[in-house]
C-alpha cells in the first residue's frame, strides 16, 4: 500500500492528485464566495488545475498534444477573464456592487 517508495518516486498519480485538489479548491471558491471577482479567480484556479493534468499527461506519455491543448486553454481563460471583468466593471460602475446575489436582480 502507501509506502515510502511510492512517495519518493513521483509519477503521474502525484500530479493528478495535486490537480484534483486544486480543482476542488477552485470549486469550493466558486460555491461559497459571493464576490464576483473572487469567483472569477476561482474559475481561473480550476482551469489551471486542468492545465496541470494536461501537462502531466503530456510529459508522462511523451506526447506534445497535451501542451497544445494547454496553450488553447490559456487563451480561452484569458479571454474569459477579460470579458468577465469587463462585465463586472460595467455593473460596478453602474450599481457599486460586486456581490453575486445582486446580479440576480439585473433584468432587461
Amino acid at each position: 500500500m502507501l509506502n515510502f517508495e511510492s512517495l519518493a518516486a513521483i509519477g503521474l498519480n502525484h500530479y493528478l492528485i495535486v490537480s484534483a485538489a486544486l480543482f476542488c479548491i477552485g470549486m469550493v471558491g466558486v460555491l461559497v464566495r459571493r464576490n464576483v471577482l473572487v469567483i472569477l479567480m476561482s474559475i481561473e484556479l480550476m482551469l489551471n488545475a486542468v492545465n496541470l493534468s494536461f501537462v502531466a499527461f503530456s510529459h508522462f506519455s511523451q506526447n506534445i498534444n497535451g501542451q497544445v491543448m494547454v496553450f488553447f486553454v490559456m487563451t480561452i481563460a484569458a479571454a474569459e477573464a477579460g470579458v468577465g471583468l469587463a462585465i463586472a466593471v460595467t455593473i460596478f460602475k453602474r450599481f457599486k456592487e460586486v456581490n453575486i446575489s445582486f446580479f440576480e436582480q439585473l433584468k432587461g
Partner: protein
Amino acid sequence: MNSLAPIIALTIFVVLFGTALLFLVSLVGPKPKNSDAKNSTYECGIDVQTTGHSKISVRYYLTAILFILFDIEIIFMYPWAIAYGDFIKEGQGLYMLGAMGVFLLIFIIGLVWEIKSKALEWD
C-alpha cells in the same frame, strides 16, 4: 541544462537578501520618534480628505484588457518564429507564411479597429 533548482535557489537568496536589509535598517537605524504630522499620509502638507483609493479612470483597465489579448496573439507567434527556418528547409515556407499571414491579418484588423474606435485615446 534547464534545471529548476538554481532558479528557486536564486529566488530564495534574493528574498533573504532583501529581508536581511530591512532587518539591518531596523536594527542599526535610530528608533523612530512618532508624531501625528510625521505619521500622516503625504499630501503636500494639507490634511487627508479622502482615503487613498479614490476613483480611477476606467482607461487603465481597458488598456490592460487590450494588452492581454494582443499579448496572447504575440505569444502565438513565438513557436512559429523559431520553427520558421525549419519549415523553409522542408519546403513548407509558403504554407507557414500563409498561415501566419491570415493570423496577422486578424491582428491588424483588431489593431486598426481599436485605433479607429478611440478605445486607446487618453485625454
